[in-house]
């Protein structure tokens, strides 16, 4: 009980301390803070969109959205090539890999119709994922780029 009280008090102090610092920012400092906060979500809008759609529709127990565009023949900071690792109870009933992939493709239809050129999908049920972890099975790395035809980014 005392521990909880101390912890809560520490959190309160921290909150007001940081709060008081920000309150004392002048306008340019506040603008910079705001810009930084906005940039981290707007710099990679496709990744954010993929993450939120998969979270909302599959309620995964584990999710990784990996931008692999840097491995390919595309400009810096592109969002054209992704790998997603999704572990969800939905895959207890959707068992076949093809069906799992179709489900993910459907959820990310707009991204795939749009900027996303390649999507590697690892889709597992929680028990399959646990087995992989217990056995130390690692996710295979995506293949190296062969250069393509230089036509990316598309659309």
């Amino acid at each position, binding site marked *: 009980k005392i521990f909880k009280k101390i912890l809560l008090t520490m959190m309160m102090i921290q909150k007001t301390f940081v709060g008081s610092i920000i309150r004392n920012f002048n306008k340019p400092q506040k603008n910079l803070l705001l810009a930084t906060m906005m940039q981290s979500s707007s710099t990679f809008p496709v990744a954010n969109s993929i993450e939120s759609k998969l979270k909302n529709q599959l309620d995964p127990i584990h999710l990784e959205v990996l931008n692999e565009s840097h491995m390919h023949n595309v400009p810096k900071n592109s969002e054209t090539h992704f790998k997603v690792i999704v572990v969800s109870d939905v895959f207890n009933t959707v068992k076949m890999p093809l069906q799992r*992939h179709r489900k993910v493709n459907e959820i990310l239809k707009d991204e*795939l119709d749009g900027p996303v050129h390649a*999507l590697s999908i690892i889709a597992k049920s929680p028990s399959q994922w646990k087995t992989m972890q217990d056995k130390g099975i690692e996710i295979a790395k995506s*293949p190296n*780029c062969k250069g393509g035809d230089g036509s990316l980014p598309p659309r």
Partner: protein
Amino acid sequence: MPQCGFSARVVQALQSEGVDFASVNVLDYPQIREGVKKFSQWPTIPQLYINGEFIGGCDIILSMHESGELGNALSEEKVEDGTQ
């Protein structure tokens, strides 16, 4: 060899299965590139078809190759695939 790493891996898997296969470089045929996506309702390339049936893309093919499923599926069938 294909100009795409994902397609190249699928080609390697098929070669190691020791089967004859036909392929289309969709970079040379934009209509096929788009048409095959509509046909299979699958948004990306490579796409493997066995006897006209869409099997999957790179992730699925490589996983089937590792588990031996691909070998089983190929053992009696004629194979066609579209790659880039």
